[in-house]
């Protein structure tokens, strides 16, 4: 079971375990930026605004292809990829280097969002956290 963490901690955990991630932003259901690795505030806002536009286009495209309820996406370019995952009213968007391990990145992003969504656990459950996952585990 994951321990509940705040957005900044979840972001720190994500960048620690995922070497493929370059920049991250976590946004709540109202579009409010919860945490980001982008130090410059203006750039962070531009990143979030860009993610919003990307999602709008992707949703529109998904509906035109009978793909409702978009949950996640990857836009892969030669310079890197943008990943977006929506879960529990929040979304997480990251940029990666080119040719990332797609399944692993999605797994890490969902894990990050789940760590925010988990209900508060008993104090004993907060003392340990599984850290033994190998990079090859991209099954989810």
């Amino acid at each position, binding site marked *: 079971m994951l321990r509940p963490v705040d957005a900044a901690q979840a972001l720190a955990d994500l960048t620690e375990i995922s070497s493929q991630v370059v*920049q991250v932003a976590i946004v709540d259901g109202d579009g409010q930026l919860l945490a980001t690795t982008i130090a410059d505030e203006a750039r962070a806002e531009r990143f979030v605004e*860009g993610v919003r536009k990307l999602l709008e*286009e992707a949703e529109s495209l998904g509906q035109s292809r009978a793909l409702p309820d*978009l949950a996640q996406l*990857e836009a892969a*370019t030669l310079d*890197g990829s*943008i990943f977006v995952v929506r879960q529990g009213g929040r979304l997480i968007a990251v*940029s990666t280097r080119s040719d990332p391990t797609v399944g692993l990145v999605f797994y890490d992003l969902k894990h990050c969002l789940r760590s925010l969504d988990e209900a508060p656990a008993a104090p004993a459950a907060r003392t340990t956290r599984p850290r033994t996952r190998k990079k090859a585990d991209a099954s989810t």
Partner: protein
Amino acid sequence: MMLAAGSLAGSVLYRRRAARRLERVDLYAEDGSMASIADGSPDAERLLTLARELLAVAR
């Protein structure tokens, strides 16, 4: 000489084609269905342009 030039040209073409295949947009729905939109279609190009802008901001 011509053989070497032909091999070089073929290698360049192959690499370019392989690189273009990397550019795509994959959309995943809640129900697990997925659509992959390859570079070259207008739909993909709109999304890839936005993605490139995001990568530039995130750099």
